[in-house]
């Protein structure tokens, strides 16, 4: 490997002679493409930000304007008076409990599947893989049927408990625990520590990177979840941000198109995930590709 690299180095230094001029042109073209698409990607969010501070008339008359005229916070104060704070609280509670549950239960199961020897382990892991292949949308009606049967429909428990564990998270944790050297655990075992103690005070502290990834994915997933909250509840006071804002769109708040209000509602619900994203981007990128590879 090293020999090939050293062999290639001088080649790369000699090569650019011909493509040199074309490289400059290509770079300009590359930047043009990148900037155009960056505009396509950022402009909608800027429009959203501007429109949520516009009056309704202004938003309809000047949809492209990036500066509201006049600037008004009417949309936000109307949201504050409506059920919006309640939806926010519901989303927050659900996301918090689901994230805690997933991180704990998924890593427990992931550790068992990676390290503990017990009969049926292979079959269990195969089952986890099979479960990951079930398309989520297919489960919409089935989930409602079961929640209804158990008397959990339209309650916090029905909204939270089914999300407390996910196969993808188990998979991520199992992969991680397999990459950790066994020697540390062996030392603890020789000292007489039981499986849970080894897991809790020896292995888990070493699993920080994987735990952060799983925490972020779980939070983002449960915060953005829509279908499950459509089929697990119907009372308005159990609305999360996703179901609440979706009901706003179908227009129950008086006349007009209400675009400043709707866009403000969508803007505020994006903020928590955006904060987490910009703080932990590295983990997002890794988790996103990892989580997808399993799917």
């Amino acid at each position, binding site marked *: 490997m090293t020999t*090939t690299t050293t*062999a290639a180095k*001088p*080649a790369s230094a*000699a*090569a650019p002679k011909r*493509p040199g001029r074309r490289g400059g042109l290509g*770079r300009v073209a590359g930047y043009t*493409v*990148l900037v155009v*698409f960056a505009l396509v990607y950022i402009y*909608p969010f800027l*429009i*959203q930000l501007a429109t949520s501070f516009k009056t309704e008339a202004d938003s309809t008359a000047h*949809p*492209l304007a990036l500066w509201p005229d006049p600037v008004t916070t009417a949309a936000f104060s109307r949201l504050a008076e409506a059920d919006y704070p309640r939806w926010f609280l519901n989303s927050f509670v659900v996301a918090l409990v689901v994230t805690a549950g997933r991180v704990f*239960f998924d890593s*427990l*199961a992931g550790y*068992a*599947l990676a390290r*503990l*020897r*017990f009969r049926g382990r292979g079959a269990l892991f195969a089952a986890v893989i099979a479960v990951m*292949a*079930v*398309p989520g*949308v297919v489960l*919409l*009606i*089935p*989930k409602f*049927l*079961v929640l209804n049967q158990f008397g959990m429909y339209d309650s916090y428990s029905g909204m939270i408990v*089914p999300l*407390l*564990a996910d196969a993808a998270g*188990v998979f991520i944790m199992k992969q991680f625990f*397999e990459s950790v050297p066994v020697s540390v655990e062996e030392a603890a*075992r*020789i000292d*007489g520590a*039981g*499986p*849970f103690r080894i897991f809790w005070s020896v292995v888990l502290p070493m699993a920080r990177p994987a735990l952060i990834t799983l925490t972020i994915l779980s939070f983002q997933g449960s915060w*953005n979840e829509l*279908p499950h909250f459509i*089929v697990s509840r119907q009372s308005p006071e159990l609305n999360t941000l996703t179901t609440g804002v*979706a009901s706003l769109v179908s227009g129950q708040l008086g006349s007009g198109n209400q*675009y400043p209000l*709707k*866009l403000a509602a*969508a803007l505020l*619900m994006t903020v928590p*995930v955006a904060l987490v994203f910009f703080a932990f981007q590295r983990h997002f*990128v890794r988790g*996103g*590709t990892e989580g*997808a*590879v399993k799917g």
Partner: protein
Amino acid sequence: MSAGVSAPAVAAPPSAPSQGRGRGPGGGIRGREGLAGWLFVAPVLLVLGLFLVVPIAMALWVSLSDWQGQGSPFGNGVGFVGGGNYSELLTTPGLAQTDFMTSLRNNAYYVLFVVPLQTVLALGLALVLNGKRLKGKGFFRTAYYFPSVTSSVAVSVVFLFVFSSSGVVNSLLAKIGVDGPSWFADPRGVVHLLLGGLGVDTDAPPAALAGRSLGGLTLWDWLAGPSVAMCAIIALVVWTTAGTFMLMFLAALQDIPVEVEEAAEIDGAGRWQRFRYVTLPMLRPTLFLVLTLGLIGTWQVFDQIYVMSQGAPGKTTLTPAYLSYQSSFNNNEWGQGSAIAFILFAIIVALTLVQRFVLRDKDDGRERAAVRRAAKAARSGTGPTAEVSR
């Protein structure tokens, strides 16, 4: 992995008696580990079992029954109708069949547009971003990826405004003198529009197409293409998901050793040749992954339909996933709704299997060819060049 696991079992027996435990060597540890193992997986097992496996079994029963949503589906008044719900959707002429076939058509066009577009966009952006000596990579990557992490509801609301009749897209179109459609109210299919533009009378379509029907839909209707409303949703989804796939391509591109591309450059391969014969073959596994994930994901489209159109206008954005929800929750046709879910399940599984089969075959052939080519190159091509360059 297996070596790592068996190591402690070998190491354990001598240590256990030395600790003065009264258990049999190995067996005690194994037994304790076995119990711990099952206890550790129990919560996950319980949740996935109760809310994934049991629901599927229960829905299978409901899809074979005439349950109307009252009381328990296992109650006395609920009758067994066998494959009745399935045949109503697939073979018996009627509203249920027409709706289901319409939803299949809509989703098929959606898949046909979204999967290639998002794959090409993701690959294109990744290739440009992978360029050497590029500044601001992190910024661009973040910009393209950000929509993927935001809520589907939030971005759907934004796009409802962007594509509203007096919205962003139409204002931009007006600047270049184009009168934009009222996107979410326009049920016309783009293929019909295209044919209309070519002089075909869309109000009185050719009898050869309008006269014959398949599954409750005329051939003319099958060929409609995605409606204008669906096009707006397609644009949204491509815009949202391309970022995730771009990251996968970027990761794969960064795994390609620089020497390979440089060797090709030295051999005189142009930019396109290098992409076609060096980069693309090495990206093949990622490309397949992206296509498979795209195919699975696009057949499940639900959130955007629920928020933006609810199947309207003229049922042209109705998809099987949304129809399944609508039949059950709005029309109380729970048997039919469950049956649609299972047919959708079958479609997704079948597509995955077909794709896997087709690609495996091709892969083997190509791999063998690639190995042959590589061996040949090693013997003649690259060896001498490397020497010359040194």
